[in-house]
């Protein structure tokens, strides 16, 4: 099925994407901390601080608690990092077509997104600490809570594209090539904005950030899921946190702001690639600022039952309204023509 050349290409690009994902992921964590610090009137750590932290964690002792299940405890961080990187292989980065784009679509990405969270749950339960167990239970509840609104977003966007007669509406390639805003009419654009709001709320939950960081909740559970982790294992989780940040922002970028600089301004080939990458990074930082940095400094942490009611009732409802608007938009072709 896959030729040897293609295989070599995929392996090579996987290596490049891995390095890119880790470096940009850590950089994003640094930018996030800097922005949050400035909003709180602090100077904050230098942007390279996550790299320093990572190096420090690597030289720290890797403690495995006595009543932990060692193999799950050690496997969870590696799996979490690996699965987050795999998602990156399905996502367009700048104008570069995803290396595995032809083999999976947004539905697959949605499934893959649950794996890092499941790894954390497994690692938490395997830690053998009551804090980690409570954290793991909360992580599961949170996961169940936000999957529903996330699914609405994905389905609604793809459905609208399919209604517009676009082939393979679930592939990220088509979603990026035909932005929702250019397909939909005014009603659809309002619906799209509502979906964007839902996506912005799902992102901090996926990344376990305030207000949805109940599973780690420093002041309640002392780090919850990660309470027993240290050294290399914690470093792996730290990296996967960075990569996940990039992944979530990249999904939002691919679905909602897929334009590239090269498609707007004509640029020479080599310059266009670099410019697109930088433009992509800018978009990612923008998404991260509004859905992670700003939200996490502007709100108090929710209780776990509140997390569920927020996602199932409020955001679920907003998502459904968005979906209905998109459907109504597709049902009125005239509106689409007008736009």
């Amino acid at each position: 099925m896959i030729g040897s050349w293609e295989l070599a290409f995929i392996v090579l690009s996987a290596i490049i994407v891995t390095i890119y994902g880790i470096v940009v992921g850590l950089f994003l964590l640094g930018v996030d901390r800097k922005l949050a610090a400035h909003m709180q009137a602090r100077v904050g750590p230098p942007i390279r601080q996550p790299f320093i932290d990572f190096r420090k964690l690597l030289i720290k002792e890797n403690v495995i608690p006595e009543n932990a299940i060692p193999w799950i405890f050690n496997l969870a961080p590696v799996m979490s990092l690996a699965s987050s990187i795999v998602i990156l292989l399905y996502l367009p980065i700048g104008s570069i077509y995803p290396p595995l784009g032809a083999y999976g679509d947004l539905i697959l990405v949605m499934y893959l997104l649950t794996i890092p969270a499941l790894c954390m749950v497994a690692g938490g339960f395997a830690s053998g600490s009551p804090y980690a167990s409570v954290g793991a239970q909360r992580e599961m509840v949170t996961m169940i809570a936000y999957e529903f609104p996330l699914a609405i977003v994905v389905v609604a966007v793809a459905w609208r594209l399919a209604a517009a007669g676009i082939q393979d509406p679930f592939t990220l390639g088509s979603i990026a090539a035909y932005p929702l805003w250019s397909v939909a009419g005014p009603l659809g654009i309002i619906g799209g904005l509502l979906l964007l709001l839902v996506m912005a709320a799902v992102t901090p939950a996926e990344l376990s950030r305030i207000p949805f960081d109940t599973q780690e909740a420093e002041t309640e559970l002392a780090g919850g899921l990660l309470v027993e982790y240290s050294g290399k294992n914690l470093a792996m989780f730290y990296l996967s946190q960075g990569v996940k940040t990039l992944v979530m922002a990249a999904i939002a970028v691919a679905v909602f702001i897929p334009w590239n600089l090269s498609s707007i301004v004509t640029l020479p080939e080599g310059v266009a690639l670099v410019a697109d990458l930088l433009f992509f990074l800018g978009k990612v930082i923008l998404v991260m600022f509004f859905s992670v940095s700003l939200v996490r400094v502007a709100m108090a942490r929710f209780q776990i039952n509140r997390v569920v009611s927020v996602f199932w009732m409020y955001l679920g409802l907003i998502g459904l309204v968005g979906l209905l608007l998109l459907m109504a938009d597709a049902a009125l072709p005239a509106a689409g023509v007008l736009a």
Partner: protein
Amino acid sequence: MSSLPMIPELLRQLMRKPATNLFPAKYLPPSVTEFLQSVASGKAHLTPPVETPPRFRGKIEYQRDGCIGCGLCVKVCPSHAIELLPETKRIRIWVDQCIFCSQCTDICPKGGLHMTDAFLLATEDRYEENLIVE
């Protein structure tokens, strides 16, 4: 935004300068000793600490010459940081143990004890020469 009143406040702050006084430097230098050396040689700039108020209670100063060895300061020192040396009839102050209450300066009949505004006294050696006033 009326239900989240913090957001406008945060966005406004993002545009402003942080409130932190960047003492001694913006970021922690890899080696403080090297940093201080480069400050001394004029290569780096050291941001000064916030100024102390006029009647600040810092490291103690002792005028040995006026001292009559009455030992009143030893009597009121809450932390037993002052020692009366019987052979010289003078006192020795262990700044490491001093709690900067300034009670000894109040009681000294000769006015031979004063509080300065020196407060950067952190060190690794509790018996450092700098921390013994006599």
